[in-house]
């Protein structure tokens, strides 16, 4: 319980103070890294508490249960909170070593950490919206990081599209409150079965659109390439490895737990949209010649796998979706951070990331793909598409590897060793999860069991 409060309050309070200080100073940067590390430690302690018992629940402000806002940490939330916190920490260290260029950067990353932790541990529908908006607002400002025409244009597109997505989400929140009469997610899940189907479908479509915009799925992807290629590598890593988790988590939580009937109904549609995303992202990524562009389109393709797994549903499907979200976020953080680096170690790390994206052992991506194949085993058409998507991703990552590292098209001075060491350290879990996948598999099945209950 203390861990839950600390994980939330620490980055929140520290973030407010840090935003007011000059983040370009090295010391302020390292303080923000320390806060993010403390947040990660608190989340690990929380995970140790949560995993054996099921969940940790707390009503805020000493209100009686049912009146106050509930914070509820279960296996699903904790997995995503840990993942996002780790992604933010990695990106923050990268940027602090590189030298922060704008004063608000460290404070905003910490505030984004507070928002993301809140989103994943809240048990209240409207509170979810508030934390969601807190993290999005921090991300809108982070997208302008750098401040040249390119970043500003990208940030404008990102902010406008995502604001509309957020308001669509709010419309669905209003609808769900109207039909169930409660904001507590547990109670909504109990009452959702009795809701009139037409209303429930409308609400579910609203949630789907809102979270798909965050994820950048195929018909909602139009903002994504501009933003991921326009933003600086650290910000792109934060957006794809941290913020995009809201989309995957939201689809799992709102589809799998709150509106399971509607999710089953839409299963085929989700699989079709996911497959379209895989093929679209893969084909466009093959045609790209720079690593950041390739990664942006690859991000569209990779979330397609998550959606297909959610569409298949059941414990196996959800577990595959969670596992693949984790693997994909790690891949994206790793590869985006290497975008502007040069050196032998960077090349080795890129190869590992490339193996992981393509789903080749010994990287973690292989385990992700294996679980996906296991979930889709009854559906030969989807299996063929998965195979095609993997082949495309193999082509696009190694094509970029060839351009950047064999032909030596990355120019500029050789990266100093702390940066190279950092990406190597981030690569370690990707390798470790591929070599020894049992803990990750157990964790994702534990998290999926929360939904399948």
């Amino acid at each position, binding site marked *: 319980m203390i861990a839950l409060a600390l994980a939330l309050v620490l980055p929140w309070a520290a973030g407010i103070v840090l935003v007011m200080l000059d983040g370009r100073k090295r010391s302020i940067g390292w303080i923000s890294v320390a806060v993010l590390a403390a947040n990660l430690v608190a989340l690990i302690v929380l995970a140790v508490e949560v995993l054996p018992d099921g969940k940790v629940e707390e009503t805020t402000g000493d209100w009686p249960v049912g009146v106050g806002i509930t914070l509820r940490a279960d296996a699903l939330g904790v997995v995503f909170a840990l993942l996002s916190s780790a992604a933010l920490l990695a990106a923050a260290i990268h940027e602090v070593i590189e030298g922060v260029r704008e004063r608000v950067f460290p404070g905003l990353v910490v505030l984004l950490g507070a928002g993301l932790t809140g989103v994943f541990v809240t048990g209240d529908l409207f509170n979810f919206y508030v934390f969601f*908006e807190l993290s999005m607002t921090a991300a809108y*400002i982070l997208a302008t990081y750098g401040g040249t025409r390119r970043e500003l244009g990208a940030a404008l597109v990102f902010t406008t599209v995502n604001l509309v997505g957020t*308001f669509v989400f709010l419309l669905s929140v209003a609808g769900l409150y109207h039909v169930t009469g409660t904001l507590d997610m547990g109670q909504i899940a109990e009452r959702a079965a009795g809701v009139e189907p037409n209303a429930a479908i409308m609400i579910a479509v609203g949630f789907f659109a809102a979270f798909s915009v965050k994820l950048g799925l195929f018909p909602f992807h139009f903002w994504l390439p501009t933003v991921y290629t326009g933003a600086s590598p650290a910000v792109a890593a934060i957006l794809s490895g941290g913020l995009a988790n809201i989309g995957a988590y939201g689809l799992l939580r709102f589809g799998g737990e709150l509106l399971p009937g509607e999710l089953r109904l839409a299963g085929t549609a989700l699989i079709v949209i996911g497959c379209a995303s895989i093929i679209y992202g893969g084909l466009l990524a093959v045609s790209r*010649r720079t690593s950041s562009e390739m990664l942006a389109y690859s991000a569209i393709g990779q979330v397609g796998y998550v959606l297909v797994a959610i569409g298949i549903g059941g414990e196996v499907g959800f577990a595959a979706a969670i596992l693949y979200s984790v693997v994909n976020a790690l891949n994206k953080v790793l590869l985006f951070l290497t975008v502007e680096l040069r050196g032998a170690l960077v090349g080795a790390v890129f190869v590992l990331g490339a193996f992981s994206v393509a789903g080749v052992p010994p990287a973690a991506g292989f385990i992700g793909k294996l679980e996906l194949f296991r979930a889709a085993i009854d559906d030969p058409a989807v299996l063929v598409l998965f195979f095609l998507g993997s082949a495309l991703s193999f082509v696009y990552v190694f094509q970029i590897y060839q351009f950047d590292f064999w032909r030596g098209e990355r120019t500029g001075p050789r990266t100093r060793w702390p940066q190279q060491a950092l990406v190597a350290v981030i690569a370690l879990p990707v390798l470790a999860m591929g070599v020894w996948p049992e803990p990750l598999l157990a964790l994702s099945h534990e998290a999926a069991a929360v939904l399948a209950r």
Partner: protein
Amino acid sequence: MKLIFALAAATLFGSGAYLLLNRDLVRVVLGVVLISQASVLTLIASGLTRGMAPIYPLTERDVSDPLSQAMSLTAIVIGLAVTALLLVLVLRTVDAFESRELDEIAEDEALRDAALERQHAREHEDEELAAR
């Protein structure tokens, strides 16, 4: 009453969507504002009840739903904050591009992409030749 709210919210959302598709950046911001107001109206409409003010201790008579009021207040405040943020972003964009037309921003991006494409074409000339 519900119908009036529904119609008002639908009109706001529709006008907002129309403005959002405009080329002028200030109109885009106005579109986002209108859409945010549509969702606030929907929040108010989600708990339409008539009754006493819900002040503790509760009397026997019906009370009106305080939750939808609290939610709409929060949504209004958040909407105000993000609108301010969006306006600052537009201001910085206008400063950087010296224009408030979305077309010119898109053109800038297209020019950058074209330059990148040409650079790659130069670098991979030998490959293209070999392929032919």
